[in-house]
């Protein structure tokens, strides 16, 4: 039995597996390694995932959801036609599709997975990710921080005695920095920092904004469809700029053609604010881990956005050295997750490596203190486990009563970096009873235990009575009970997912539809004819004929797309 590694990304997801002492990225039904993390519902109420769904982002924006990873762990609802999904459920569809790809590739049933999450995901978001795995029928053996996975991917190649890494992970929607140390088969994460709302898509947005500004267009008057087209153009332009120095965006709005030429240096100027935003997490990681660029042996670039020349030159300039990108930045995390899955299985060849991870944020409690005038000030945050502490860890602090004959101590559990609890995230609360005494006489010991899976257990012990109250912190509003999960799973099971073997055909049709909408007159008619012909072939259900026709249609559509650009 194999455990698979999954990189569940904001824009793209990948699945990998360790076979024959080597990690392999498993291709999807379209023989591509990247599966877009997009979910769409089609006319028949069937769920589409990946490329086909991404094409429908333009033709059917109201029926399609993307970038839902950003809302993981929240109660945000996505209304897709007759269904309503949570981000967790949408993720489960992506995972289910990846699982199917892995099963087809490995020719066996898969039940376990290691899934990567951004280092900055909080407990709630991690829980939601695990739940998504379970909904997809995968036992989630372990969640792994994305940068950790990247380091695992590279770490294997360098088995020298002591090495320090920085992982610079700029994905579609998140930016993560982590600093790691590898020595004697110990991989230690020294610091992580990041920005949950900074990624490659922001660079697309930056191009879109410039396009609109250049042509003096008002974003509010554009319909969703036009915006989708524009988004695709921006993304295409960004990718093209990785190879070329100059590229153009074009878009037809209200029958008028708009074109904008852009060069890499212009792009760099436009993205200046975003580049500056990259610096803060970097500075924090360096400070927290007491590291200087000189201490680093490698700087690893991860995430599709690091393919942009402007990002690479930024990194080279800022670190004063060239970053490493020998493994495809898109695949590094999945690769590492696959390796880690194998480590989990204690596959012989990897048995020796021990990985220690850190807690990405500070965990603490609410306290009241006396100010300089002897007044009681409430609502202060008291850190118990500080960010970037090695996991697992357990810390205990003693707290005293503030009032005479106080019988109840309320221990709030918070996560965050602010001195004021109100600015931090409340994870839960415990109430313990203490014998009534004068203030400062009764005390409780509060122990926080944070395990390697990011699960926090809070234990409060009354010093005088020895009474112990324990709680595993769960965020109530978002966590479903087991019955609820069961019920929801049943509901989801009834929703049909488009069969994997038809994925390519479905994708071609969706792409054809998009191109039909984007083109005019003659070309349009040609596309319509081709699509109708293809549908007729599909109806005949002759497999060989379908394959041949699909091939032809794909070439045809690609030609049109090339020409349209």
């Amino acid at each position: 039995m194999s455990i698979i590694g999954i990189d569940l990304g904001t824009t793209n997801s990948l699945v990998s597996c360790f076979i024959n002492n080597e990690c392999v990225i498993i291709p999807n039904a379209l023989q591509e390694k990247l599966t877009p993390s997009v979910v769409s519902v089609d006319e028949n109420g069937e769920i589409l995932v990946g490329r086909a769904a991404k094409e429908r982002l333009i033709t059917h924006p109201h029926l399609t959801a993307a970038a839902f990873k950003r809302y993981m762990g929240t109660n945000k609802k996505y209304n897709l036609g007759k269904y309503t999904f949570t981000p967790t459920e949408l993720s489960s569809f992506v995972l289910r599709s990846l699982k199917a790809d892995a099963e087809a590739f490995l020719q066996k049933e898969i039940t376990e997975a290691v899934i990567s999450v951004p280092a900055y995901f909080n407990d709630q978001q991690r829980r939601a990710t695990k739940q998504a795995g379970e909904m997809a029928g995968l036992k989630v053996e372990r969640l792994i921080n994305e940068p950790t996975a990247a380091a695992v991917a590279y770490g294997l190649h360098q088995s020298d005695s002591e090495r320090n890494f920085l992982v610079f992970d700029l994905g579609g929607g998140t930016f993560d920095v982590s600093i790691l140390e590898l020595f004697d088969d110990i991989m230690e994460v020294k610091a992580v920092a990041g920005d949950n709302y900074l990624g490659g898509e922001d660079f697309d947005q930056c191009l879109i904004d410039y396009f609109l500004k250049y042509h003096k267009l008002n974003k509010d008057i554009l319909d969703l469809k036009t915006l989708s087209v524009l988004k695709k153009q921006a993304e295409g332009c960004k990718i093209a700029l990785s190879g070329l120095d100059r590229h153009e965006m074009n878009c037809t709005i209200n029958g008028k053609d708009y074109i904008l030429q852009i060069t890499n240096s212009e792009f760099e100027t436009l993205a200046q604010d975003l580049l500056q935003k990259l610096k803060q997490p970097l500075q924090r990681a360096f400070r927290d881990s007491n590291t200087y660029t000189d201490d680093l042996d490698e700087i690893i670039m991860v995430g599709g956005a690091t393919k942009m020349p402007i990002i690479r030159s930024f990194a080279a300039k800022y670190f004063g050295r060239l970053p490493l990108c020998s493994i495809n930045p898109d695949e590094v995390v999945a690769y590492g997750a696959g390796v880690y899955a194998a480590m989990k299985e204690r596959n012989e060849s990897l048995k020796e490596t021990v990985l220690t991870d850190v807690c990405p944020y500070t965990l603490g409690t609410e306290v009241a203190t006396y100010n300089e005038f002897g007044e009681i000030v409430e609502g202060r945050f008291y850190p118990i486990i500080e960010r970037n502490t090695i996991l697992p860890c357990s810390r205990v602090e003693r707290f005293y009563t503030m009032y005479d004959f106080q019988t109840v101590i309320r221990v709030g559990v918070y996560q965050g970096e602010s001195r004021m609890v109100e600015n931090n995230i409340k994870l839960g609360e415990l109430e313990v009873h203490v014998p009534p005494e004068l203030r400062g006489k009764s005390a409780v010991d509060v122990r926080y235990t944070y395990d390697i899976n990011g699960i926090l257990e809070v234990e409060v012990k009354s010093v005088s009575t020895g009474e112990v109250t324990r709680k595993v912190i769960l965020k109530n509003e978002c966590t479903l009970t087991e019955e609820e999960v069961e019920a929801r799973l049943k509901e989801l099971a009834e929703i049909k997912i488009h069969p994997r073997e038809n994925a390519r055909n479905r994708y071609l049709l969706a792409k054809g539809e998009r191109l039909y909408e984007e083109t005019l007159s003659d070309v349009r008619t040609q596309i319509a004819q081709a699509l109708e012909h293809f549908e007729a072939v599909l109806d005949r259900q002759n497999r060989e004929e379908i394959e041949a026709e699909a091939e032809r249609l794909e070439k045809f559509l690609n030609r049109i797309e090339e020409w349209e650009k």
Partner: protein
Amino acid sequence: MDIWSILGIEKTSDVKEIKRAYAKAVKKCHPEDDPEGFMQIRKAYEEALEQAQTGRGNMEFQVFVNNSSKSNLDYFEDNFIETVSKPEETFDRVRIRSNREKYSSKVKPQLLEKVELLYNDIFRRRDVKCWQDLLNNELTIDEYHYLAENAWNFFNNNYCLPYEVWKLIDAEFSISEDPRFRWAKFVMFDFGLPFDCFDPNLDIDYSSYAKFRFNAFEVFGDGDYQETVKLAQDAEKIYNGDYFIYKIKGISLYFLHNYDQAIESLSKALSLNDNDLELLLYRGNAFFKCGQYKKASVDFKIVLKKEKDNLEALKGMIMCLCNMKKYGLADKYFRNFIEKSSVGDIQVNILFEKYENERLRGRLRKVIKYVKDVNYKISTEHSILSNILVFVYCTVLIPILVISIFMPFLGLIFAGIIIAFYIIKYQSNKKNY
């Protein structure tokens, strides 16, 4: 169990050995299989590393504060203890950096080269965009961190910067909150020290000029006017195209009661920048002190032309006019002054009281006559009013008299009363005349 036996080694300060021992121990207690055991090892490891590193720490610590004075060192240590003992105050704890020496020796020269290159070119130095560019694009992360920590030190020595640049630096490094930084006031308030008067086409040592000027400004702020004048004269020797230096020199001379030279210096400043009303005000006052009221009033008048309600100028104008005995004109300015000034001004009030007395004495006869006139007018008005009353009485009462003829007794008595009343009234009217 002591930390070294947990790690299974003898006490050592060799970091490599500690790491090796830790790695060996961890493999026996996998963090997953034996979290308790792992946590114990981890704790021992961290403690061992700290012991090994603080042994070296003190020495490097002194390197960090290298050429600064002993008090600085003490200060830093105090600060350090304070931050550690109050963890709730800040989470970005100050830490002793074990590899500081290695790091600063490499980063420092590169950084200084970059920053000094910018600072020493006064035309780039005064441009906030150049600083923005340096901070955003030119510094590597190590250099940035080094500068963030040592900004107070660098800018203590290199402080001739325009306000906009200070603002930028403060936004980046919060330098004004650092008690070691000497020039916090430059960062917090805009003193208007201009940098745009430097002409890039002239071959002049602007850097030393700017330094003299800043020093002059500094002592000027402290109230040491003698020193200000001296420094200003040194600065003047290097460059004579900057009104600012003449301004503080002039003002200092004014405060030193050296009015003639003050006027000379302020006139020079005015010839370079006639938009600065402060210059005119000081020169006006200086003229006033010299007794040249005419010239003073001209200066004040220019100010008032640009700024109608400038109290300082109004006051100067009043004083000049009073001294020139043009009370009529002063009266107009005084009323304006009273209207605009909520608190008033003792000097002006005394002056005006004096003026009022003067006026009263000078025009006493006129005033008495005026009062008489007014009284006469009032009494005349009164008599006319009485006549009208009498006339009304007559015209109304005559018909009543006619009616009373038809009532013999009552009529007679009534008529008698009316006649008596009329006679009394007539007599009283006569008395009035």
